């Protein structure tokens, strides 16, 4: 009875939390498993199985366009998410830990990229970039993606900083003289979950972007979403499923690898 009592009081085991999380994950993965199945389809359909084969994987590996587009997308997302995370972290430190004048206005500017409809950002950037003589290509994509990723990185990081106890940092300030050391030893490790959340959000937002990329890409910098949308005209084939499955596989490898690394650390 006493045992039951403490269990019920342990907030960590709120009823239904585990079940909801499991359902959420299952819901997110169900369509992925479904489309992975059809990547092995021998036929051209993405919803009717005509036998199994690696036909569409061979097609992906033989297709320079789609492979190059996938690489462009990942590279772009890594660069944009990293740049946005660094800038957003700096901004969040200033906004949460320091006295900033016109805080509300600054906050609005930091989140401004969220508010603009994508097609408008795309067209405005296209016109602006060509007006200032910046050619279309990977460089313009990096600039545009970094810009619209900033709020996606900023909001989780700022949320983390706000909920983080500033006491530790203050205590550290009493002990160490140098703020940089204090930041590296205390603030940064505490901030880590926020940084990871912010970076991951910025990464998936950049990876998924289609409208802005389609307007700002130049020769040789087509991204995967742009390529997939352009296939609609002639019909989606399981080749899209195959390339999507390979992306999932790549990301799963990253997850496993980081799991191994963190295990070694602990």
């Amino acid at each position: 009875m006493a045992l039951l009592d403490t269990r019920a009081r342990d907030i960590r085991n709120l009823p239904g939390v585990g079940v909801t999380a499991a359902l959420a994950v299952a819901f997110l993965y169900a369509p992925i498993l479904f489309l992975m199945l059809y990547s092995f389809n021998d036929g051209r359909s993405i919803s009717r199985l005509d036998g199994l084969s690696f036909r569409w994987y061979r097609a992906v590996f033989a297709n320079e366009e789609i492979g190059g587009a996938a690489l462009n997308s990942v590279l772009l997302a890594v660069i944009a998410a990293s740049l946005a995370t660094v800038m957003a972290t700096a901004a969040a430190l200033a906004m949460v830990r320091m006295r900033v004048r016109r805080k509300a206005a600054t906050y609005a500017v930091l989140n401004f990229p969220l508010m603009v409809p994508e097609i408008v950002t795309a067209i405005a950037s296209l016109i602006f970039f060509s007006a200032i003589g910046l050619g279309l290509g990977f460089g313009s994509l990096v600039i545009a993606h970094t810009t619209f990723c900033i709020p996606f990185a900023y909001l989780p990081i700022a949320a983390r900083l706000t909920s983080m106890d500033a006491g530790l940092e203050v205590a550290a300030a009493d002990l160490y003289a140098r703020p940089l050391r204090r930041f590296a030893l205390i603030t940064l490790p505490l901030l880590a979950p926020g940084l990871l959340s912010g970076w991951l959000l910025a990464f998936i937002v950049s990876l998924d972007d289609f409208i802005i990329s389609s307007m700002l890409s130049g020769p040789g910098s087509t991204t995967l979403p742009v390529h997939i949308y352009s296939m609609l005209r002639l019909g989606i084939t399981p080749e899209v499923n195959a390339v999507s499955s390979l992306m999932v596989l790549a990301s799963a490898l990253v997850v496993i690898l980081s799991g191994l690394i963190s295990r070694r650390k602990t």
Partner: protein
Amino acid sequence: MKLHRLLLAPSLGTILIFMALPIALTTLYSVLTPAQHGGVIWQPSGEAYVRLMFERDIFDDTLSFNADYLQILGRSALQAGFATILCLLIGLPTAWFIATRPPAQKSLWLMLVTVPYWVNLLVRTIALLLMLRDEGPINGALQSMGLTDGPLPLAYNNFAIGLGLVSSFLPFMILPLYAAIERFDFSLLEAAYDLHASRWQAVWSVILPILRPGLIAGGLLVFIPGIGSYLAPDILGGGKTLMLGNLIGMQFQGSRNWPFGAALSTVLMSVTLIALILVARRAAREAA
């Protein structure tokens, strides 16, 4: 230069130069005249804003009230609210679950949530539709098990749109919430438990202040992009309605009326901007 200015300069500078400046230009487009094949003619006109609320009679040029665009705005805002609530209901327990895992597992779980997002949203949404529809595997399984006689109407309705919205936005709620509640000191809560009589009192007094920044962040990240999103209604809802996102897209594409597209987007941005500043003011007051 003060430290806080140095810290803010890169992000503010990037946004002001590469986003605000170009957008200011397109805002200017909203008071110009459309060119025949897209683009604008540099001739001032207020027609785009008149059109938001009024319909011009083709014969005698008189104006009459037209609620079409207000309806679309309302529907889009409703969709965004719907998405936010659904994501909150599912995202909060999930974030809580992840935050209470042993330290080594937390970031693994977090990445696990984002792995599906390596697949393009369009492809994921189509896969979801193929699963849900009459001839899909879910209805197939239900019927072969003898649980239902005919196909359940899973696709092409609000239920399907809801699922699509959750699948579009869930991590935008989970990740900020997780960032806020991770390493929450649960002994605080247990102490609160001993002091307060009820469990909910404990939850409200101790957890809410920690949760609030995450709720605000997640809410903004789902609600604002939710207003402009249209893939879920287009594909899962059968494409029978227009959302603000495709209405604006249409003006820059097939309808070739850039000023009207710019006017719609200007109105949308102004409304969200005002709302955001109110949120920020309130948050600042509470923090002070």
